C-alpha cells in the first residue's frame, strides 16, 4: 500500500500532467496572438467552472460568473506563475469573484431591506433533471452539505483535484481540505443510509 501524499506523485495528479502541459501550451499560443487558443481553454474549463459555481451556491448567473472568471484570468495571465494548475487557478479566481458578488449582493439587500434567503446557504442548482432514484438521493445528500463541504466534495469527486489543489482553490490548508472531504463523505453516507 502506498503512503504517498496527496497532491504529488501517486494520488496527486498523475493523470493530469498532460492536461496541465496542454494548458500551458495554449496559454503560450494565446500570448503569441492565437485567439483560437483562448477558445480552446474556455472549452476545456468552462464546464468545471460552472459546476464549481453551482457547488458554491451560484444559481442564476452562472454564465456571467464563468465569463467574468475567464476575462479576469486572461487579463492577469502574466501573473500566472504555473505554481498550480491552470484549472486550480481559475477556481481560485472564480471563488474570489463569487465572494465579491455575495458581498455586493448583501450590501444591496441591506439597502433595500429585502428579506431573502442567503444564496450561499441554498443549493437549488441541482434541481435539473435527475435520471433515477439513486441520483436523486445523491443530489439531496449533496444539497445538505455545508457550503465548504460542498465545495470540497465537488472539487474532489467531480474534478478529481488533490487536497493541495483544493486547498489552493478555496483558501484553506491541505489538512483542512482532507477533513472537509471525509466529513462530507460521512454525511453523504449517513443520508443515503437513512
Amino acid at each position, binding site marked *: 500500500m502506498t503512503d504517498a501524499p496527496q497532491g504529488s506523485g501517486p494520488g496527486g495528479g498523475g493523470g493530469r500532467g498532460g492536461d496541465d502541459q496542454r494548458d500551458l501550451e495554449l496559454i503560450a499560443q494565446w500570448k503569441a496572438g492565437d485567439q483560437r487558443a483562448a477558445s480552446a481553454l474556455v472549452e476545456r474549463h468552462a464546464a468545471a467552472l460552472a459546476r464549481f459555481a453551482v457547488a458554491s451556491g451560484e444559481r442564476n448567473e452562472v454564465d456571467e460568473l464563468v465569463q467574468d472568471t475567464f476575462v479576469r484570468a486572461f*487579463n492577469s495571465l502574466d501573473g500566472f506563475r504555473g505554481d498550480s494548475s491552470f484549472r486550480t487557478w481559475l477556481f481560485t479566481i472564480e471563488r474570489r469573484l463569487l465572494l465579491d458578488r455575495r458581498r455586493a449582493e448583501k450590501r444591496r439587500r441591506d439597502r433595500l431591506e429585502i428579506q431573502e434567503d442567503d444564496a450561499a446557504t441554498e443549493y437549488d442548482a441541482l434541481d435539473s433533471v435527475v435520471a433515477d432514484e439513486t441520483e436523486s438521493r445523491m443530489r439531496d445528500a449533496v444539497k445538505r452539505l455545508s457550503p465548504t463541504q460542498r465545495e470540497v466534495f465537488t472539487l474532489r469527486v467531480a474534478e478529481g483535484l488533490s487536497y493541495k489543489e483544493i486547498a489552493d482553490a478555496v483558501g484553506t490548508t491541505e489538512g483542512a481540505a482532507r477533513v472537509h472531504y471525509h466529513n462530507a463523505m460521512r454525511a453523504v453516507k449517513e443520508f443515503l443510509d437513512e
Partner: protein
Amino acid sequence: MNDCRNAEVRDQLPDLLHERLDASARAAVMAHVDGCADCREELELLRVAHGTLIKATPRVDLNFIIEAIPNAAPRARTLTAPRRRLWTDWRVAAAAVVLIAGGSSYSLLGRHGGIVVRDTLVAQVTPSGAGSASPQVQPTDSTATTPVPSQAPEVVAEGPSEAGETSGLGASRMGELNEKQLKALLTEIDQLSPTPITEPDPVFLRVDTKGTTSPEGL
C-alpha cells in the same frame, strides 16, 4: 455503509476514479479494493456522485464567454515592445551626447592652444646669460603663438604654424641645444627657487606689437 479502516486507500479512491494514480499506486489500491467490500461500496458511491454532479452541470454559452476574452496580440505590443524601444533610444541618445560633447571639448582645447601653451612657454624661455637669475621671454609676433617645428608632437602640430622660425631654445627641443646653451639652462634651473608644494598659479603672457612681453597673473 461502513468506512474502511485503511484511511490511505480511502483517500485515494477519488484519484482512482479520475485515473490520477501512477501504475504502482493504482495496482496497490486496486488490490485492496478487490478484497474490501467497504471500499468497493465507497468507490461505487463516488461514481454515482461524480455522475450526478456532472449531469447537474448547468449549460454555459461558450460563445458568450469567448466573445469577452481579450485579444492577446495588442497587449503584447503595447506592454513590452514600446518600453524596450524607448529604453534603447534613450541610451543611444545619451551616448551620442557624450561623444559629441567630449569630442568638441577635445577639439576646442587643441585648437586654442590649451595643450600647446606649455610648449610655447618652454620654447619662449630663453636664458639671458650664464649668470642671469631671471629668464627672459623672446618676443613673438602678434598672434602670440609659437612657431612649431616640423618634428613637433602631433598635438602641437595642430596649432598655428605661421609664426616663422626662432633661434636657440625657440626650437623647444632639448636635443637641439648646443653645449653652451645646455649649461646655461642647467644653471638657470639650479638658481630657481624650490618647487612649491602647491600648484603654482597660471602664467599668462601678454604680447604687444612692439615685441615686449610681460607675464600676468603673478
